[in-house]
């Protein structure tokens, strides 16, 4: 599914990613853990094509297709979805309008038929109920005046409706209380599938109690410093990142 090789990326003059390699096969959930400033968010922005993040070396492919040659909306149409650490507020655009516009834009890009309004509303109603989101909220401008927890749930709702293949969750647990975290994790787990892969970026191990990863990678100093099974997350929780930060 996602293959990243020797990726180097700069923000401004500063090199943040320094030879990062990663392979996330279909059907698996991989966690990326690391100290603040290790390059976790940079990795998510490089994979989704945000302006200002320049790749200077290396490659990133999705099922063999060069992601770095595509612009952000083309990557989204190929199935790359980023759940933002800080979801944006979109004043004046009702959440339903925004999500339907996104879904139909993706479908158009893939040469599929657009979803008509009634079918879309039915889908949105269903997915919102599963995430315990009040449907009335979807008529309000997206994320405007929503709490941190509501914004994260809206991210998962968009993920559920857009049905991407490659999910990147950037610090999805930040700002969530335990109840909200459980709802969000359930939403994410419901999306686990043999033809989907997930990259869960987190500073704390807590989220991984609810979204169980197949592999855990430590990101330090702009590259993967260690990889292991779920037990690695527990070790990090116990011992911290010092050992890797120093090595980097």
């Amino acid at each position, binding site marked *: 599914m996602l293959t990243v090789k020797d990726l180097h990326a700069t923000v401004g003059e500063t090199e943040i990613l320094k030879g990062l390699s990663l392979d996330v096969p279909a059907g698996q959930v991989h966690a990326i853990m690391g100290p603040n400033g290790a390059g976790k968010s940079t990795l998510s922005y490089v994979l*989704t*094509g*945000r*302006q200002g993040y320049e790749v200077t070396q290396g490659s990133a492919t999705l099922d063999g297709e060069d992601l770095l040659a595509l*612009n*952000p*909306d083309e*990557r*989204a*149409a190929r199935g790359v*979805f*980023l759940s*933002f650490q800080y*979801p*944006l*507020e*979109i*004043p*004046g*655009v009702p959440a339903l309008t*925004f*999500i339907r*516009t*996104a*879904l139909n*834009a*993706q479908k158009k*890009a893939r040469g599929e038929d657009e979803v008509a309004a009634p079918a879309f509303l039915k889908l949105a109603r269903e997915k919102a109920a599963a995430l315990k989101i009040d449907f009335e909220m979807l008529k309000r*401008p997206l994320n405007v005046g929503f709490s941190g927890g509501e914004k994260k749930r809206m991210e998962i709702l*968009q993920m559920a409706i*857009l049905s991407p293949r490659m999910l990147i969750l950037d610090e999805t647990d930040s700002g969530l209380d335990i109840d909200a975290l459980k709802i969000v994790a359930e939403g994410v787990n419901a999306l686990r599938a043999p033809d989907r892969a997930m990259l869960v970026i987190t500073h704390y191990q807590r989220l991984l109690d609810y979204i169980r990863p197949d592999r855990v990678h430590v990101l330090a100093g702009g590259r993967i410093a260690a990889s292991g099974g779920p037990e690695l997350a527990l070790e990090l929780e116990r011992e911290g990142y010092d050992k890797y930060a120093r090595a980097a």
Partner: protein
Amino acid sequence: MNLAGAIRDLDPAQLPGKRDEDWRWTDLRGLVRVVPEPSTPVDPRDVGQGPFEHLVSASYVVANGAGDVRIEVAAGEDKTLALRLLSRGAGSHTARVEVEVAAGARLTLLETYEGDTGGYVAHASLAVSLGDGAVLERIVLAADGAEGVSVSEAEVRLGAGADYGQTVLLSGARRQRVETRVAHPGGGAKLRLDGVYLVADKRHADLTTVVTHDGTDGVTMQMAKGVVRDQARGVFQGRIVVARGADRTDARMEHHALILSDRAEVDAKPELEIYADDVACSHGNTVGALDEDALFYARQRGIPEAQARGLLTEAFIGEVIDRIAHEGARGIVRLWAAERLTG
């Protein structure tokens, strides 16, 4: 500084220009060297349909300035009327319109400025009066041609307890200005004074308003927004004067503009002059680019860049259009604006 006089006397020396403080961004004196000959008459039966005509009971047409218009709405009446001011060809002309809404009467006035490709110089002056407790909603679509010079000036007098709502949309011209001056008597009169300018190419749009609060307990709510592209220029001049003794005035002014190209320009002058003590007044003014973070967010969800820009820009001005009370007019205005944002 008198455009109507300059047109009447074919005398460019009377044109307002940059030495006049209120006209320094819309300098007609420096632009129009020779006032064109009077426009040739146009048969008003020969001008087709306007954008609002299916919504109204009657339509008043002033073509190339011919025919003064007087609109009266008597007490107890509730009317929806269209007023169309048309400019055709390369001449000059002036139009005069009087609107009187009697105490307790209601009017929705759907006004359009419709220009062709000619290099006309046009002036319209409107005298609007609202009796005590009268209600008027005035929607203006100013759709002049790229070569036209068009100025509309309205003097509005509110009675006590009157409710006046206005939304002006401008798409610019060689020079285009819609100016509204409102005399606010207080006495609980309510004023909504909104505007949107959507300017592209080399067009110029000027939205100017002056509100004077003379009595107590008056309310003014103003929201103006602009979207300026290419080498276009948008001007917003908003002045609210609260006279001595006009206590408990509540006046809010907001102006926000998006500049979508390096060569576009916005000139804004929001002014509050307050001579009374017990008032609630505020103003906010921002001029900037589209939020790049929001744009990336929309693109990450799969919305292509041009469509994402359109969506965010439409949402930006949608906040103003949503305040139009007349539902049918609101729909027409929304479409009109969308066409000018994607064009």
